[in-house]
């Protein structure tokens, strides 16, 4: 659906519930996608949360998915945008970010503490260096960029399959999401990720509860690369998912749903 924001609109999935029918007393949840992706990477969580007592919105960042407008060029700009979304939707909110989205969630929690009830960071690390071949493929808008992300982004189990949603091929789904992104967006997002070096600084400013969901087989943000951030955050909860790669929302959807609901209900 498209939701008005000032003089423009943003796109979000919310389980198909009319905004007018939502209970304003239900906790607000905002899901933030990663580089070159869009709201639909959360399809295993969005609809479930929306029908289980949350006002859940998986948003498309500007120039991603169904949201128009020029792309934002820094993590802090994206955090400001998320804060405005939260205000529009009647926040504060539990925010959940994946990969680049976890940087955005962290920055939102640090820069806009009144907007955030909790921050869950999925597939996060102190920094996100980007393989030069991936950056080159993205710069040239080659389909190979999507294949790199889908290939490195999933643990070994999902390279075989066994999707909990019958008939869907997870690697193919991730490839298509990234391939379908607008030209130049993946390139920009990746360069934003690789140049972002404020995680430890931001972590010191975070006051809300934080949870990190980390896959043991994550090649893009390896488990060990999250440790400096874990050490810098005040009392984070760390959930390690064995055998899971970079895409735990789709690779381990039930585990992620359980962690989110458990965290939200404890706050």
């Amino acid at each position, binding site marked *: *659906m498209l939701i008005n924001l000032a003089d423009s609109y943003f796109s979000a*999935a919310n*389980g*198909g*519930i*009319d905004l007018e029918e939502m209970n304003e007393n239900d906790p607000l949840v905002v899901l933030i996608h990663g580089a070159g992706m*869009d*709201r*639909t990477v959360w*399809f*295993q969580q*969005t*609809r*479930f949360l929306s*029908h*289980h007592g949350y006002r859940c919105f998986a948003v498309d960042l500007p120039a991603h*998915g*169904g949201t128009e407008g020029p792309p934002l060029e820094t993590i802090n700009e994206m955090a400001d945008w998320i804060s405005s979304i939260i205000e529009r939707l009647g926040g504060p909110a539990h925010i959940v970010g994946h990969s680049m989205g976890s940087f955005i969630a962290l920055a939102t929690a640090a820069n806009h503490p009144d907007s955030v009830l909790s921050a869950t960071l999925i597939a996060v690390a102190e920094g996100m260096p980007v*393989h030069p*071949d991936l950056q*080159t*493929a993205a710069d040239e808008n080659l389909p*190979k960029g999507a*294949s*790199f992300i*889908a*290939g*490195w982004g999933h643990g070994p*189990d999902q*390279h*075989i*399959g*066994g*999707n*909990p*949603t*019958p*008939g*869907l*091929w997870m*690697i*193919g*789904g991730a*490839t*298509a*999401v990234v*391939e*379908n992104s607008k030209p130049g967006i993946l390139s920009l997002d990746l360069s934003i990720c690789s140049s972002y070096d404020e995680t430890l600084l931001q972590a010191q400013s975070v006051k809300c509860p934080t949870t990190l969901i980390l896959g043991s087989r994550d*090649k893009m943000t390896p488990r060990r690369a999250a440790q400096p951030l874990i050490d810098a955050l005040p009392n984070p909860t760390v959930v390690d998912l064995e055998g899971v790669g970079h895409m735990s929302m789709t690779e381990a*959807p*039930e585990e992620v*749903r359980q962690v989110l609901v458990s965290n939200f209900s404890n706050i």
Partner: protein
Amino acid sequence: MVEPDAHKFDTKSLHAGQRPDPVTGSRAVPIHQTTSYVFDSVDEAAALYNLEVGGHIYSRISNPTVAVLEERIAALEGGVGAVCTSSGMAAFHLAVATLLNTGDHIVSSQNLYGGSHNMMTFTMPRFGISTTFVDPHEPQSFLDAANENTKLFYAEVLGNPGIEVLDIEAIADAAHSIGVPLVVDATFATPYLIRPIEHGADVVIHSLTKFLGGHGIAIGGAVVDGGRFDWAASGKFPTLSEPYDGYHGIVFTDEFGPQALSMRARAEGLKDFGACMSPSNAFYLLQGIETLPLRMQKHVSNTHSVLDLLDRHDAVEWIRHPDHPSHPDHELAKRLYTKGSGAILSFGISGGREAGKKFIESVELASHLANVGDAKTLVIHPASTTHQQMSAEDLLTAGIGEDLIRISVGLEDPADICADLDRALKASQR
């Protein structure tokens, strides 16, 4: 530049979609011969019914054995998902019924399997869906035939029975230029020989009964969702981009993005129309796919042996196979089908209909039946069988003369296949 991290085609043929059973350790795919699945709780049942979580409810909608086959086909084709059906025709119908409504229009290649031609000519009009048939060699012919109600372009990547080669990218570009998808039937090719999604096709239909199964023991079909077509931006597909009351106002493109077609085809199409695949058939078809790469190599090499025989035979008037230099699409085939363009060929027999009849009745190793893609060599006379519902004019348009014999080249020793065909050809001339 490094290569993306992904299993190769042969590995996917064996493994995609199935990890060993966590309870029993079963290495082979188990046959889940069950109609239904126990829910852990009322809440879980409600979440499954409301598409909030993935899982199985009832085997008309999904089944664990069938799901392995669906993932495997999607992986081999490079799609985002697949929905298996009771037959290839059911797959074609599922794709059309998921995307189109009364009043909609299809532009289709005229060179088709007779059953598909029949469905679009006689059956779909009863439901208000019309079709215009065009020459698949001309992208402009598709565009010229399109109107404001056109919702998809349809073609076979290798036509039946003339084995016309579709320039997938050209037709896809034409379709996309007017905001509609290209749906292709890739039964004759299999993903081993070509993966149409990589060339721009949006949906791939298969009769799994043929080369993918390969053994001629199980009927089945599949709709493969390419996941690249922007259904919402097109504005022509309300079944995917507008609220569906059948699931409390769900908008499939909002929720599932590139998997919207897969999800709607299952949630509505299998649920309401019910043309599901049985778990036993899925198991049989999986056994075939495990050896697809090896079989297709042999099918193609045997086909080349048969082409050599026909090429020098006095009883043969003409040969129709894209790997043969006489085929009008030979150059296109060389570009698109680097591993060969399949194992189905046709030829014209000297002496026309009577000689054709003698040939069919003289083969001893090859089987005369209405199928293709079996491990065994098959022969048929289309004008009197598979395409017999077509008028003389339509037969001519589709390039099916009374002298046309179709061969589906099997996996027997090529010397034995050629000896049998040679004997029957000689007999046909007496």
